[in-house]
């Protein structure tokens, strides 16, 4: 997912850069009748608009079905899910339990005892797998299934004060 998004970004930005370069290269030769320029390119603009509109509708439908965030009102039972209670404080995490099994979905119930924090799950290669905010007064339900055992890191992803960058703990997946 991350590499795909990154590649799309680079390709589209490069295409936009190419269009601007094309116009720069063609800026010196003078076409005095501007109305002929606008007539030609307004036609293209209409098609461009409908292309973007269609693309937007398709992307919206595909990316939102099913909705990527778990239902927060649903109770996630312990027979189907491993439940981990996560509390966050300046500047440490408490996780109960702090060991889970691979292959079975884990429901993290994430909250904060003081300020806003960000619960980010990183694998051993420091790749971000998923996250949710930890807010005072709210419990956010994040569901993640670990594919393989290992030592995973929990990093704080919401600025929370002077030791924000040191707010790290470990989750063991067996």
């Amino acid at each position, binding site marked *: 997912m991350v590499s795909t998004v990154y590649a799309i970004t680079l390709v589209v930005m490069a295409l936009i850069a190419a269009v601007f370069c094309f116009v720069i290269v063609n800026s010196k030769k003078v076409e005095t009748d501007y109305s002929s320029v606008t007539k030609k390119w307004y036609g293209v603009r209409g098609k461009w608009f409908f292309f973007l509109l269609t693309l937007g509708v398709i992307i*919206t439908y595909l990316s939102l079905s099913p909705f990527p965030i778990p239902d927060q009102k649903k109770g996630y039972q312990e027979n189907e899910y491993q439940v981990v209670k996560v509390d966050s404080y300046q500047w440490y995490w408490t996780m109960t339990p702090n060991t889970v099994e691979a292959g079975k979905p884990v429901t993290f119930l994430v909250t904060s005892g003081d300020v806003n924090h960000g619960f980010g799950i990183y694998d051993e290669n420091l790749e971000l797998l998923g996250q949710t905010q930890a*807010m005072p007064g709210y419990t956010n339900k994040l569901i993640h299934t670990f594919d393989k055992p290992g030592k995973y890191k929990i990093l704080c992803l919401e600025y929370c004060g002077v030791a924000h960058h040191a707010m790290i703990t470990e989750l063991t997946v067996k």
Partner: protein
Amino acid sequence: MSSTAVVNRKIEYSESENRNALIAVKAHLILGLAVLLLMMLAGLTMRAVQGTWLEIGADLFYQIMTVHGVGVVGAAGIGSTGVLWYFLRQYVRLSNTIFWINFFVFVAGVVMLLGSIFLGGYGGAWTFLYPLPGKSMGVWSTGAAAVFQLALLIIGTGFLILYLDMGRGILASFGSLSKALGLPQLFGRVPVDTTHPPTVVAGTMVLIVNFLGIAAGAVVLVMGLINLYNPEFQPDALLMKNLIYFFGHVFINATIYASVTAVYELLPRYTGRPWKTSKVFYAAWFAIVFMVMAVYPHHLMMDFPMPRWALIVGQVLSFGSGIPVLVVTGYGALMIVYRSGIQWSTTTKLLFLSMFGWAAGVIPAILDAMVTVNRVFHNTMWVPGHFHFYLLLGLLPMMFGFIYHLTGEGRQGEQPKAADNLGFYAYLIGAFLTSMVFLASGANSIPRRWATHMAEWVTFAQVGTVAAALVVLGMLVFTFRALFSLPKAAEPR
């Protein structure tokens, strides 16, 4: 319609009013430029610390981070206001006195911000995310947090006063905000007038959204201030977050919509081709009024208790917000330059670059605003990646291009000086690399707002430091050019 009709719309001022107005605009631009230069040095410092080339305490790092955030937003605000006000006063009668009042209120606010950060030690980030300002674990005092929020409140009040004057002027000239936005023309109640000034449309949009955005900001700042001195008053954290991001998103976005007036006004002068308004133009700006205000939930996608519909709106409108620039403004700039015989001066290069920066900068922003993508990009370096792209290559070139125009550069066949060329290309390469390194860092899951980076991330920060140094080099040239040439420059004809 001939250009004579446009000239006839213009407001007549006395010579002394015009002279005073030009001084005021220059003061806004020079202040904005000076603050931006200092903020870029702050950014360079942070990247050097993350790259292990410089060692400072975490408390100082986060103070620098706080001043960098609030300083850039403030400088963008005051500079873009200078651009918009300069052009808008040509079509609606605006008060020099109120323009100056906002300027000095802003300066007073900046002094308070600097005091709260570097004397009081406030390092709660420019977003003052409740309840962090009141819970620093002894790093800064309640007083420091209060002065920071009070400063923002005062600065916001100055802007509100200015917007009231803009609103008064627009109503006096056009009768209603709806007419100023061109809505009767859009909906066919009156024939389309292609000479209706784009600046008036943009200025009206900025006025509407920023008035509401700043009002929301004032509400959340007052609630935060009450909480600081009466901790039993505990507003809902999610409500506060909504208000803060509504205010912050609207304010920073409005700066680019205000500054784009420089492109609308100046590219036609340098190409000899008009920027005509049309139904498509009015529709785009009418949509922007709503989209800029309603899109902010894309900052809250990882706040799972947010209503599902709000996050869907955030995603859909993020995509929608890219369409006006890709289809109308950016596209219009491409058409106006294509085979125009334009002379490439620093002014025109910067203005054209701004269109590229804006158009390309929307791509990583749109992608990050998809819920499914946001799960692995939110609060990583991807976020500063896309907004640095927008700001460094979109917004700031609009302001710098306008400054170069005011200095008289690029007219009468004059060639850019070697120093200006050096500044432009150092800035271009540096800004592009800075943004791309941020994006690459985000794609490697590196979190934002970390004073100390893990060993695996240090190389990214080091490359980012070199890129930031290039930005500073370019910025130094722009700043010296402005300081030496702008004060004595006459009103461009």
